[in-house]
């Protein structure tokens, strides 16, 4: 199989990439989509984003609210919830350990001895 390992990795962390982006401020769909694509190809297309956001909403990690914009209809913003913040912290804690393990494996050293 010649599956793109990078694409699979990015897909695996896309949910947490969204949580990380929302940590600072609420964002709307297009903003999130552009950030996720530009900052490392976490999603392939804006089409990938909305099922992902629906999952995050189902888990109560994000909520939405509508806000009027200067032109056109109201924009739907996504905001991190406390649960989402906790999930992100949890991921962060696991990530450093995980990435250290992977590094160690790749470099051929062992952690124990």
């Amino acid at each position, binding site marked *: 199989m010649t599956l793109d390992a990078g694409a699979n990795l990015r897909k695996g962390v896309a949910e947490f990439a969204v949580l990380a982006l929302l940590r600072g401020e609420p964002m*709307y*769909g*297009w903003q999130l989509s552009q950030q996720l694509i530009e900052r490392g190809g976490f*999603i*392939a*297309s*804006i*089409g*990938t*984003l*909305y*099922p*992902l*956001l*629906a999952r995050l909403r189902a888990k109560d990690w994000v909520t939405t609210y509508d806000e009027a*914009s*200067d*032109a*056109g*209809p*109201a*924009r*739907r913003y996504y905001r991190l919830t406390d649960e989402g913040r906790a999930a992100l912290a949890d991921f962060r804690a696991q990530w450093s350990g995980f990435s250290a393990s992977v590094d160690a494996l790749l470099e051929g050293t062992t952690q124990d001895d």
Partner: protein
Amino acid sequence: MTDPTTAYLAKLERAVRELPQPVAGDIVAGIREELSGLDADAARERIAVLGDPDAIAAAARDELPPATTPAVGGDARWYTVVTVLLIGIGGFVVPVVGWVVGIGFLWNSRTWTRRDKVVGTLIVPVTAAVVFGVLAVTGRAFVAPGIANRLVPSVFGFGHSGLVLTVVLASVASAVYLLVRARRLSGVATPARDGDAGWYTALVLVLLLIGGIVVPYVGWIAGVVLLWGSRTWRTVDKIIGTVAPPFGGGLSFLLLFGRLGGYSGEDPPVGVIVVAWTLMALPFVTFVYLLVRARILRR
């Protein structure tokens, strides 16, 4: 809203039609809020970045796990079943009103796309109008000439013209259409754990109900054969489905009996009328029974 935007959103709406509702709506709303307010050139630029609507829909579909699709998609199962039944046979239980209520249910549902709702609504009135038009143009009488058969309720005299038969067939056709589309949307047809494919189940139901009218006896027998060959129902259900008299057979029996019994000129006894009505109502009862039982197995 500018022209490229309108065209793009229309294409996008078509592309996401098969996706479950919250996601499909989110995609269209998210992209609409991004494009509106832009002038034509800016919109064109943004559309180029967004890319092909079909690719967006495909990306969303890849991201949706197949298992969660049905839950997100439609209404509760009982709502879908009630809607299909009201449209299919509601108009015969409570004339016209039953069907109209069914259409109300249909438009209020999340199980079907807008296109399915339009098709489901139009099948009956359009076919009835066409047949009515043909009959009017050809100048054929709506009430059959010749011997009146008092055993058969007077609407069936009307039915000789084909109009009532058309409405019956069209109602059942729209119910079957909606049933198949509902299954497709909710993804129930694909797993086929206990039962058969959705089209097979639908075919069995239709053949048992009206197969005997379309091809006398043979249509109904084909339905029974398919019923026994199916994995959707239990043996008990199959026996009940077989024992209930076929619609076509029952009707031709009545027409024949009405003539032989000499009920052409005078009113038949009440007992005979009751038997006649029961014979005609039973297939509908069987239809509902099998439909409900098929669904229970699938849970």
